């Protein structure tokens, strides 16, 4: 390919770059004025462009949500498959949970964020939280207070 031909290609590229710079450096008023001169309605353009951006972001959020759900399902499946030595009764599990909360205060914020008051936790919630802690091997350090 000759230099002359390549120069023609670069020539056009530079002209288009120059036109691009005009767009980037124009004031807002000039941009809007140009749109009106070219019979474009800036309000229509705005609605259409925002629609494109919105759809792109939402579709990306859907992808993230699907990935997060898949991750959660994997975590739940792992918990279901694992066997833990948890107390047999609801009362025993609640005692263990409260002991864990007092002996592992660093984890309290994580639980109090989700559950404003430990009293509101159902027996099922307690069991899920204990399974999570067992999965992280946190319960082996917890000592349950002996019955008075």
């Amino acid at each position: 390919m000759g230099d002359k031909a390549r120069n023609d290609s670069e020539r056009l590229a530079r002209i288009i770059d120059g036109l691009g710079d005009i767009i980037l450096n124009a004031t807002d008023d000039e941009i809007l004025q140009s749109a009106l001169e070219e019979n474009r309605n800036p309000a229509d353009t705005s609605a259409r462009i925002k629609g494109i951006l919105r759809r792109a972001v939402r579709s990306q959020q859907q992808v993230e949500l699907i990935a997060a759900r898949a991750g959660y399902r994997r975590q739940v499946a792992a918990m279901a498959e694992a066997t833990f030595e948890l107390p047999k009764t609801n009362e025993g599990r609640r005692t263990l949970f409260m002991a864990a909360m007092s002996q592992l205060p660093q984890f309290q914020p994580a639980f109090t964020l989700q559950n404003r008051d430990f009293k509101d936790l159902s027996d099922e919630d307690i069991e899920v939280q204990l399974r999570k802690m067992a999965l992280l091997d946190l319960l082996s350090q917890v000592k349950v207070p002996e019955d008075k």
Partner: protein
Amino acid sequence: MKGKPKVAKAEVPKRAATSDEVLRAAEALSEAETERIEQFAINRISRIGRRAAAGRDHEDLLQDAVTSLINGPRHWYPDDGVSFTECLLGAIRSLSSAWAGHRKRNADSPRYAGLDSELSFRSDEGRLASPFETIAAPAPNAEEIAVRATELAEAKKLADAILDSFSDDEAATYVLMGFEDGSTGPEIRAALDMTETQYRTVTRKIQRRAKKTMDEFYGR
């Protein structure tokens, strides 16, 4: 050894915008900003050429650009003081360049060759040559050479058409010649001894007329 040893300050990691922040910023764009964003995306598609765009238009470019701000490799760092518009315009530029680069590296891929229906050619035996025949060709083949020759001929024709459309306007012709040389706006202004207002008036005229010429050329 005198003095305290220098301890490098640990850099605080930048916080990339969440998808919700990107969404809010997009919703808050002004009419001038959306106009600027769209016109720049159209400009970039013209810049890389329709073959590099491979059937994608400026709306696809916008969509991929905003997705890249969430997914990477580019990110918007709202705490850095860079506006969302500025960041999106940068993403549009770099993504379109990436498309052009991909096309350059894979020129004989069917993805690009398949677009060139006007360049379909018949082999010596009169058989219509499939673009898939060109996969993994180590050197430019006849089709790619033909594509490139057509691109260069089109580039010359369009550049000439833009310049010719200003044959009645000396100032605009000089500014366009400055663009052709790769000069920046301030350099052109200084060389032509133009005030900022004069330069803006001329460039707006160029923008309007050149866009019309390009639209006609590409049949838009």
